[in-house]
């Protein structure tokens, strides 16, 4: 398979999988789950097969159609997109194993629709990752919103539908209201929207307009959840936990920060933006989001809502790292996409496993749960330590790079934000760990053990990945360094 074919296959495979899942769902649940796992495995094979080409410096590209003169549906794989696609496809299979345990353990309704939409969402994610220009990115960005809506509204009761309305409302209105005009503006100014190393806007836009365009992009990409367009993420927590785990900790939200990073690097260009004073606000906005979201997380009593606010803060780490506009920080932004993914998916898996086993959703109910669910609690602890950035976890690696970039830029705001948020992360995660491991359970609590095997297996794997990434991150860093090669 040539790399060009592989791009197309990566897009079509989950789509075909969705169709097969929908059909298999009429036959038997076991067949349906087999189809999901086979599709996920095949997708890994296809996407990861692209890695050697990318490592060797190849940039496979393919154009599907010219919609209008200058406006094409085209794909081009570059290191950022490769990393994102590899991450999402790799975690999909683990998440599918987990979903089987979770959905069956909870006896959820409409499971066929769930797995079908999940596969559709993955197809859209691949499209976002491999998009070769702004128009293609926008196309798949919107498809991702629409395909995840049924997953958020899964339960179908009035409260869930209301939350799903917030989800869709915020994401669609920001993307149509701000992202789309930003894209059209870019096409009109630059004559193209192709992602080009070094950017396409240099010399074509003047100062106050640069900051304005950047604002349209950053707030238009609502999936990145930079405050004040973050409200959809806590709302999305009404979805079943596997959705929160893969989509609202990895695929959807990372599509947002990934898109922002990609636009900063390939549309504006780091150097161009660094010389434009009007773009400076982005760093402060991201820093504010980090601190504010962490403070809100401190006050949460529901596990999933706490994790949602923690995600908002961690997403702004990526945005802030990208906004430092220094090579090391851009690498840090890319690595943080991976590091946070491993840690946060583990945390969500653990929260879901606790819910399946005991129906517990609140923090205070976790008292002494370490004795009943040792594996889950251990994994949760590893995820929490990674959020704080303690070695030997993945979170330490990315924080190191972002801090290095911040020092390189002499950016004390960024340095201070990272230190303060580390303290805040510790302040809301460590008490939970203490409660879970060292407190005694209230007497008369109902008996329960671990969640179904499939769920526990999945969360142990992601916890191990969180640890492993601390030691074996060489290839990722090497790949992402290509993004900034030649930029000082």
């Amino acid at each position, binding site marked *: 398979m040539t790399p060009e074919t592989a791009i197309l296959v990566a897009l079509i495979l989950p789509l075909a999988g969705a169709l097969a899942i929908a059909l298999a769902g009429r036959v038997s649940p076991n067949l349906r789950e087999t189809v999901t796992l086979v599709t996920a495995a095949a997708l890994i094979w296809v996407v990861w097969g692209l890695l050697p080409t990318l490592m060797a410096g190849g940039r496979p590209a393919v154009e599907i*159609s010219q*919609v*209008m003169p200058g*406006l094409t*549906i085209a794909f081009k794989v570059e290191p950022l997109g490769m990393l994102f696609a590899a991450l999402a496809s790799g975690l999909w299979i683990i998440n599918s194993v987990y979903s089987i345990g979770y959905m069956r353990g909870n006896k959820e309704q409409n499971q066929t629709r769930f797995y079908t939409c999940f596969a559709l969402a993955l197809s859209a994610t691949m499209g976002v990752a491999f998009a070769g220009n702004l*128009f293609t990115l*926008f*196309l798949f960005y*919107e*498809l991702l919103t*629409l395909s995840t809506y049924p997953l958020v*509204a899964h339960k*179908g009761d009035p409260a869930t*539908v209301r939350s799903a*309305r917030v989800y*869709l*409302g915020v994401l*669609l*209105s920001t993307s*149509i*209201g701000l992202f*789309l*005009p930003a894209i*059209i*503006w870019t*096409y*009109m100014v630059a004559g193209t929207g192709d992602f080009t190393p070094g950017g396409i806007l240099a010399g074509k836009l003047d100062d106050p307009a640069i900051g304005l365009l950047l604002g349209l992009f950053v707030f238009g990409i609502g999936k990145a959840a930079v405050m004040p367009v973050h409200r959809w993420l806590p709302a999305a927590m009404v979805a079943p936990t596997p959705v929160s785990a893969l989509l609202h900790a990895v695929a959807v939200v990372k599509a947002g920060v990934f898109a922002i990073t990609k636009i900063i690097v390939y549309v504006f260009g780091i150097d161009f933006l660094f010389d434009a004073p009007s773009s400076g606000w982005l760093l402060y906005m991201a820093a504010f989001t980090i601190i504010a979201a962490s403070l809100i997380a401190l006050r949460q009593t529901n596990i999933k809502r706490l994790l949602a606010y923690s995600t908002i803060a961690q997403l702004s780490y990526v945005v802030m790292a990208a906004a430092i506009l220094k090579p090391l920080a851009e690498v840090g932004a890319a690595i943080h996409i991976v590091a946070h993914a491993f840690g946060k998916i583990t945390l969500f898996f653990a929260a879901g496993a606790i819910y399946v086993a005991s129906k517990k959703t609140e923090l205070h109910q976790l008292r002494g749960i370490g004795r009943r669910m040792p594996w889950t609690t251990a994994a949760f602890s590893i995820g929490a330590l990674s959020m704080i950035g303690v070695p030997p976890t993945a979170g330490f690696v990315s924080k190191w790079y972002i801090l290095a970039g911040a020092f390189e830029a002499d950016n004390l705001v960024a340095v201070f934000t990272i230190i303060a948020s580390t303290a805040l992360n510790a302040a809301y995660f460590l008490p939970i760990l203490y409660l879970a491991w060292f407190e005694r359970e209230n007497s008369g609590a109902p008996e329960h053990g671990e969640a179904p095997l499939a769920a526990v297996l999945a969360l142990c794997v992601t916890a191990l990945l969180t640890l492993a990434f601390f030691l074996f991150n060489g290839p990722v860093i090497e790949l992402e360094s290509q993004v900034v090669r030649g930029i000082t």
Partner: protein
Amino acid sequence: MDLTAHLPALQVVVPMLSAPLVVLLQPRGLAWAGATVAALASFAIALALTIAVLDGQPQVYAMGGWPAPYGIALGVDAFSALVLLVVTGAGAASLLAARPSIDQQIEQERQPLFYSAWLLGLAGLVGIVVSADAFNIFVFMEISSLASYILIAGGPDRRALPAVFKYLIMGTIGATFYLIGVGLIYMMTGTLNLADMEARIGDVVDMNPILVAAGFITIGLALKAAVFPLHVWLPNAYTQAPHMVTVFLAACATKVALYVLIRFDYLVFQAKLADHEAQFALFALPLAILGILVASAVAMFEGNLKRLLATSSVAQIGYILLGASFVSQAGLSASVMHIFNHALAKGGLFLAVACLAYHYRDLRLDQLGGAAARMPWTCAALLVCGFSLIGIPGTAGFISKWLLISAALESGPWGWGLVAVILVSSLMAVVYIWRIVEALYFRAAVEGDSLPAEAPLQLLLVTWLVALLNIVFGLFPGVPLELANSTATLLAGFAS
């Protein structure tokens, strides 16, 4: 005998002569078959004409061999070809799907007359499009209007009668205004042929009757086109009409009036009347903006599915007028493109409504709970066409929105304000489409005991065909875009 040269005439003659023949086809189903064949034939003629136009040969036809200023002339250029495709396509698709729904709504013995009126309506609409003569446009306008009064009033619902009466009064005023305008111009120039008029009007532009004529013609056509605030006849007429008639009329009827408005204005007035550019923009732009915002806002609170979509049509007509009011090539291109794309989206939506109406007699949103579980294919098609109406990328609606926003950005200092209007109304479209989605997918079923059933296959297949066309033309808009661009070049050439 080579028929190719006669295609512009055949375009009108085929549906018009089939209409009386269809009346004779009394046995069950034959009238439908006859009408459908005639509509398909006229769609095929429109396709052939489009191909000829794309080859760079605008078709001009002199009736009976009499040359243009004296005889009756027909003409087909890029603009007419695109609108012909829309009209005949809507006619063919709606007739093809119509049978199950019409059988349900119209008694067997009245059906031949009904189909005959349908063909007359089609003939009138295509007649307007191919005429190159101001008076024949009026004649065909009357034919199509009379036919559509019959069609709308033909349904089983008695509430259609007051609706159609309102439409009749408003439509007649509109046609009369148009006729007064044409009469004034005839008085001053002595010609009815549009091209001839354009050549001669230059000598008399400073005369008051010409100015008055421009006013009468613009307002008369705006009434026919349901431009805000002259739209009040439209929501009721579309809501009460038989479902398949709504599909046909909503997809093309007002667009033909807009076609005449744009064509007349650009071809005859723009180049010659002093300051006409600014006057036209000042007249059309505020009405377009108001129409877009007010109608979208009303649609957000509308409880009846059909009336909601009909109200949204008023907003969409605003988009078409907005593009034209920029008086620029990009604006015209966007405007013409939206004529095509909106016909696809709204035609598809009303087809899906017809599918729903096959089982649901009451089309209020709160009565449609649980429809998605019973009619999954219908609801999915409705969703796709709804995306197109909103302008989600990958659908036809996105293309026209992209062109419209680009044109607005080019149009001068208040460009950003216009972009804001377009975007805000897109978000309003999200709201009213999503109200439908939540009703269909998440509301509990009202009558619990009726059986789940899809719409008849014939209806469903056509609905899905149109839904898929929304996606196809969203990804490959080549042909309509080329037609829209050459239209814009043609008309903007007259304006400058």
